[in-house]
């Protein structure tokens, strides 16, 4: 009796961790996509709305789902005080929410780079920077999608099967 319950627990645990890891593979392209559309929205705010960064990121935070919205909320609230710079506010907010995002180090670098240029140029150069960042993110997204199709299913079944293997060995 105990053996059956134990086996069920093992199977549950490994399957669950398999799904959890696989979730990272689905989340990454999704968040990249959201990030891309948020940058496009930011571009529109800058180019046509002349909206200051703080107002623009408040707007963005309302449009986006979590956890990306938390990033823009943090960014906007950091700019309330005049003694910071856009770069610092951007990087700090990025660090704050990074743990809850499923993105990778290379994406972090891209975003930090982008933060360096934000709010420091005229509209045209600002737009160029956004387009450049978008192409970088697109490349990352393609890679992320690739990995998703390769590994997502495999990790899921790997979790289940490794649990099964463990049970067989232990029995």
């Amino acid at each position, binding site marked *: 009796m105990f053996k059956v319950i134990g086996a069920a627990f093992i199977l549950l645990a490994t399957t669950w961790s398999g799904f959890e890891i696989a979730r990272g593979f689905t989340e990454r392209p999704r968040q990249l996509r959201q990030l891309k559309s948020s940058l496009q929205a930011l571009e529109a705010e800058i180019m046509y709305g002349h909206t200051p960064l703080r107002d623009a990121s408040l707007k963005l935070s309302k449009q986006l789902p979590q956890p990306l919205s938390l990033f823009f909320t943090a960014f906007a609230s950091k700019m309330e005080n005049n003694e910071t710079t856009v770069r610092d506010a951007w990087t700090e907010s990025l660090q704050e929410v990074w743990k809850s995002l499923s993105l990778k180090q290379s994406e972090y670098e891209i975003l930090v780079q982008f933060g360096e240029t934000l709010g*420091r140029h005229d509209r045209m150069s600002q737009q160029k920077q956004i387009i450049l960042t978008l192409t970088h993110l697109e490349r990352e997204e393609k890679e992320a999608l690739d990995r998703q199709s390769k590994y997502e299913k495999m990790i899921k079944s790997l979790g289940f099967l490794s649990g099964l293997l463990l049970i067989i060995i232990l029995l």
Partner: protein
Amino acid sequence: MDSVFSILPRNIGDQLRVLPEAVQDCMEEIRVRIARPLEIMAGGEPHFLPYVVTYEDSDQLLNALSQFSLYTIEEELRRGYVTIEGGHRVGLAGKVVLENSSVKAIRDISSFNIRIARQKIGAAERLVPLLFDGSWKHTLLIGAPQTGKTTLLRDIARIVSSGMDSKGIGSRKVGIVDERSEIAGCVRGIPQLELGPRVDILDSCPKAEGMMMLIRSMSPDVLVVDEIGRKEDTEAVLEAANAGIKLIITTHGNSLEEIRKRPIIQRILDEHIFERFVEVTRGAAPGTISTVRDASGKELRLGTGAAYV
């Protein structure tokens, strides 16, 4: 003053807050230059404060002016000044970026001049009996820079738009072409200074074009324009004056005699449009009216109305 303090970096704000009230009240300019002592102009006198402005201060000031977004003040960077809430103006100087040999923007800003706007309500009340006789007269205000002609002009605009019950003057529609955002101090199109209820403002619009636009679109009774002096302005002034609209205009100069020698102004004078000339000099206080003349150049006596300033 609060709107000025809200944009100043903390270090600079702290320096100003400890100044005696009397100095704070008559502050005209705050000049911030990187690596040089903070200067304030108060009552026409320069004062230097024992604080050397740092690079961070100027960065913070610029961030506050642009709300962290330089692209929002692109146009202002091209013109060299930013109007902030309260109608105060911040002049900028630094490295100029050219495009097709015209100024595109100022980069590496190293000097800021915060000019504090103080509206003197009632400054022009003494003039009213001379400028109004059944209807408003075409008026030219003449004065050198910093003499307070704009202050007078603004107050005239306020009186025209709100009327003056004590003298039986009804209110009129006023159109203002505010090329340098000086008359109304608009922020996002809304005047920050008191101008009465019947004012329509074209903010930062070229004068010549703006005058014609207002005539066509807003049908003003009185058109108020600052600092006429370019060639194309002449055309617009002549056009407007003959369109049944009263003009109240300022120009640089010391006296009527002097501006007669300026070729562009001369053309306007030759048309004998203006019925009143007001010469403004900086006497004891800015905005002292020295003489008012009628169309023929004859001096008119100023009434001993309420003392102004």
